[in-house]
């Protein structure tokens, strides 16, 4: 798809009423789990757009009005998407869904990524998200008496991945090698999507964590929010440094078009699909606006950044076989500097950091002690005869 050939909806015509923002939510029971995955992903991407534009407004005096106009509608879009998640999702159920997004999205992207280093980084992160999903599923079962599979709907396995207590690393070992100037457009869009999902997870856990009364939940959210920060660092450092703000903004708008288009093409709920289509047209309008700013302020053709057009749509389907293969082959890997090493090869700095942060105990270990997922919760397992 040639992105600049589509004008989309002009910026001045982009408007949502409060009623449209607080529209009818999805059904936790009847909608497909991937509808929820799309909702969480698109919310993550809209929040990331606002984050980028906020930081741009601090430095780019000439762009402040444009940024304020685009950010206003992005915020309304973020609201409309976020409000789709129905109120009968507990914070913990929404958390399980958040980790399902991370597992399924990262697995899909890892398989389509042509740069072997980037694909390795995604596979590495994937196994950490798989483990967090398992820990949160244990908490959901043991705190609320609920089966995480009511949320996952059989698409995603509930098993340990790379053990969360062993993933706490020194910041140096979370830095990854930045992509170079020749990185493909598809790779850049992947990086933006995965980084946005990681940032949303971190921020969501930091928002809902303190709302739990249970000390076990409070500690687990504190621990996994920190893991979210590590992933935000990991994926954030993949993005190429040294680009102008307008380049980053243009690429982000392209990522939003790409993601909404992928959502629209795979959505099973017609009412939600109509929203994805509408917002895809909005994003095309925003992309045109940023492209025009680039021509005016940098005297550059935005088409040079957007060649060769959008890659194949993102896949929203279960990636079970791939995830199981990665788990069996790469669970032993650990990060050191920007590379990956065997379990015994970690840096002294990371080992020391882990010892200190786990010094009062490991919530992710305690919450999942002997946890074995069973359909209908672990209480549903037949008890051995006494």
């Amino acid at each position, binding site marked *: 798809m040639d992105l600049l050939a589509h004008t989309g909806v002009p910026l001045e015509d982009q408007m949502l009423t409060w009623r449209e923002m607080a529209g*009818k939510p999805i*059904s*936790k*029971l*009847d909608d497909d789990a991937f509808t929820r995955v799309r909702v969480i992903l698109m919310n993550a991407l809209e929040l990331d757009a606002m984050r980028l534009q906020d930081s741009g407004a601090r430095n780019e005096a000439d762009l402040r009005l444009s940024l304020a106009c685009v950010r206003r509608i992005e915020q309304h879009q973020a609201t409309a998407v976020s409000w789709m998640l*129905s*109120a*009968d999702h*507990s914070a913990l159920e929404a958390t399980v869904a958040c980790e399902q997004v991370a597992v399924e999205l990262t697995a899909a992207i890892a398989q389509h990524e042509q740069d072997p280093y980037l694909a390795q980084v995604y596979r590495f992160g994937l196994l950490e998200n798989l483990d967090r999903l398992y820990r949160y599923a244990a908490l959901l079962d*043991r*705190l*609320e*008496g*609920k*089966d995480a*599979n*009511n949320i996952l709907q059989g698409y995603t396995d509930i098993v340990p991945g790379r053990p969360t207590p062993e993933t706490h690393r020194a910041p140096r070992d979370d830095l990854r090698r930045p992509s170079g100037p020749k990185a493909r457009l598809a790779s850049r869009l992947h990086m933006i999507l995965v980084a946005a999902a990681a940032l949303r997870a971190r921020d969501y856990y930091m928002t809902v964590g303190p709302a*739990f*009364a*249970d*000390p*076990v*939940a409070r*500690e687990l959210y504190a621990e996994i929010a920190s893991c979210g920060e590590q992933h935000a660092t990991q994926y954030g450092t993949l993005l190429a440094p040294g680009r102008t703000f307008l380049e980053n903004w243009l690429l982000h708008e392209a990522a939003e078009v790409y993601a909404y288009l992928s959502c629209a093409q795979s959505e099973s709920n017609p009412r939600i699909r109509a929203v994805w289509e509408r917002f895809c047209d909005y994003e095309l309008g925003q992309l045109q606006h940023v492209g025009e700013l680039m021509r005016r302020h940098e005297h550059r053709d935005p088409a040079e950044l957007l060649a060769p057009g959008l890659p194949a749509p993102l896949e929203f389907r279960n990636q079970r076989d791939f995830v199981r293969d990665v788990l069996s082959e790469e669970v032993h890997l650990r990060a050191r500097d920007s590379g990956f090493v065997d379990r015994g090869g970690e840096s002294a700095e990371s080992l020391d950091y882990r010892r200190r942060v786990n010094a009062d*105990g490991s*919530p992710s270990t*305690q919450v999942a*002690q002997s946890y074995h997922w069973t*359909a*209908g*919760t672990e*209480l*549903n397992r037949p008890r051995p005869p006494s």
Partner: protein
Amino acid sequence: MNAADTPVSRFVRRRPRSGAAGFNRTGAQTSPLALRSMQSYADEQVALPTPIADSAAGKGIAAMRLAYVRDAGEVGSVPMPGAITGAFALCATRLAGGAAELLVDKLGERLAWERSSVRLYQALIDKATALAASTALPLEVEELRQLRDEALEHMHIATSALDSLGADSSALTPSAAISALVTHGITQVLTDPRTTLHQCLEAILTVELADEASWELLMRLAEAAGQDELLFHFHRAFRHEHTHVRKLKRWRDELVLGAPDH
């Protein structure tokens, strides 16, 4: 792991000992001068509604809710049995239109409720265990374990009943999803290290009162559906719940009123 050395127990032990009177800042009368000033300023800035009943009725809010209720779908659907069993067919024959699905929905609700109750009782056991080390309690922790185990037994009764109807007991029915919203607040009360045993007993009493009433309803549904086997088990759960309510009230009353003289 030692039962008395769980993360919950460690937090509970740090809790202040008494709920004595202190400097609570939430009341308007904490600052009488500010109260007078705020009230007169608010009266000056916003006209009082006429008639006064308008504010209580919340007409603006009601209009919005009305519009949303009219447009809303349902929370979700009742999952239909994978295979129609004899028991389900009998229910469908004996009960008026849609009531067989209602039975599946209500059984799903009871299953979810009892499953959450097991976790709620476990939280109460953790708290009582931690408190027992330093305080005289009106109950034995072992008694709470019995209540927890009976909640588990009731969960299995609901599971078996759903199985006998050919329904998927691992599915979440609409009423089950809604019941989870009700128990959410109770979970917060029971797992908060700062709450007292009295506050926890009040909270779990509301769970058991609702539970007793719900098993009673299920007994009537099973009777109407001609499900004698189910009725037998539901009646057993109902009797247990009745006992749970009595025990919880007794313990709660002892904490508030003191132990009876006799």
